[in-house]
C-alpha cells in the first residue's frame, strides 16, 4: 500500500473505533479530524511513516481501553471484590 492509502486507512479505522468512545463519538471525531489536519502538510515519507506508527499505537491504546472498560464493568457487577 502507498502512504496516502495507509493514511486514509488509518483515519477510517480510527473513525470507526471512535463511534463507541466513552466520551461520545463527536468528541473523538473532532479531535481525530484536528489531529489529521494538523499534520496535513507533512510530506516527507519518513515523517509520515512516523505519524502512521503513532496512529497504530493509538489504535492499540483504544482497543486496550475498550477491553479494560468492559472487563472492569463485568467484574464490578458480577464478582465480589476479593480481599
Amino acid at each position, binding site marked *: 500500500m502507498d502512504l496516502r492509502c495507509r493514511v486514509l486507512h488509518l483515519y*477510517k479505522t480510527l473513525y470507526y*473505533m471512535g463511534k463507541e468512545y466513552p466520551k461520545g463519538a463527536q468528541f473523538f471525531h473532532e479531535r481525530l479530524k484536528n489531529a489529521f489536519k494538523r499534520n496535513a502538510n507533512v510530506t516527507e515519507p519518513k515523517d509520515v511513516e512516523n505519524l502512521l506508527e503513532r496512529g497504530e499505537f493509538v489504535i492499540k491504546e483504544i482497543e486496550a481501553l475498550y477491553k479494560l472498560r468492559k472487563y472492569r464493568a463485568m467484574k464490578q457487577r458480577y464478582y465480589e471484590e476479593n480481599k
Partner: protein
Amino acid sequence: MSLRILVGVKRVVDFAVKVRVKPDKTGVVTDGVQHSMNPFDEIALEEAVKMKEKKLASEVVAFTLGGPKSQETLRNAMAKGADKAIHVEIPEGDVAKVEPLHVAQAIQKVVEKEKFDVVFVGKQAIDDDASQTGPLLAGLLDWPQALYASKVEDGGSGTLKVTREIDGGLDTIKVKLPAVLSADLRLNEPRYATLPNIMKAKKKPLDKIAAKDLGIDLTPQTKILEVAEPPVRKAGGFVADVPELVQKLKEKGFVKG
C-alpha cells in the same frame, strides 16, 4: 481433534448504557438504545475461535435466537472469527417474550439437524442474568456440561479438560464430547472486531430460519409482575465533631451505652 463448535450469542442492551425502566413497569426501554453482543458470549466466541486457531476445532458457527436486528450481532460474531451463522428469527414484538428454555430448545433443534461436538455459550446474559440456557440445553440433549469455564484444554481421547470457577476455588473436570460449555469472565480477553474483518463478515454465510419452522413455541413459562428501578441511595449528612458523631451513632443504635 477437529470439533465443530456452535456458539450461542445474544443481542443485549450495551453494558455501558444506563438502563431505564419503562413507565408502565413491564420492562426496560430498548427502543433507540445501543445494543451489542452479550460480553460473556463474546468470551465464549473468543474461546471457540482460539480453539480453531489451535487446530482443536474445525469450524465455529454462531447462533442466535432473536428479532431481525439480531443479525448485526451475528455479523459481529463472524467479524470476530465465526465461519458462519444461524439466525433463528422471531418477530420483533416477541423479543421480550424469549426465555432461556426457548433458546435451549432452538439450539437443540439445530444440533439435532447438524452435527456439533461442542455448544459454547456465555455463563449468563447481562440483561436477564438467567444463567440457564447452558444447563437447560445440556438437560434437553442429555449431554455433559462444563459451566463457568475459566480454562479449556484438550483432554485426549474425545474429551475436554475444563477448569471451572466455583465458589471459593477452581474445579477441574474432564467432559466427554459432545458437551455443553459456558464461559466465565476470566477465560480469555475477547478480540476487537476490526473494520476490514467487519467488511469480510458481510460475505460470510448466514442461515435464516423462522422459529415457527423449527416448531418452537414461545409461550412464556414465567410472568413478569413488575420491573422496578433499584432504590436510590439516600444522601448522607455531615457531622461537625466527634461527640455529635457518637451521639448520632447512639441514636441509630450502632453504639451501646
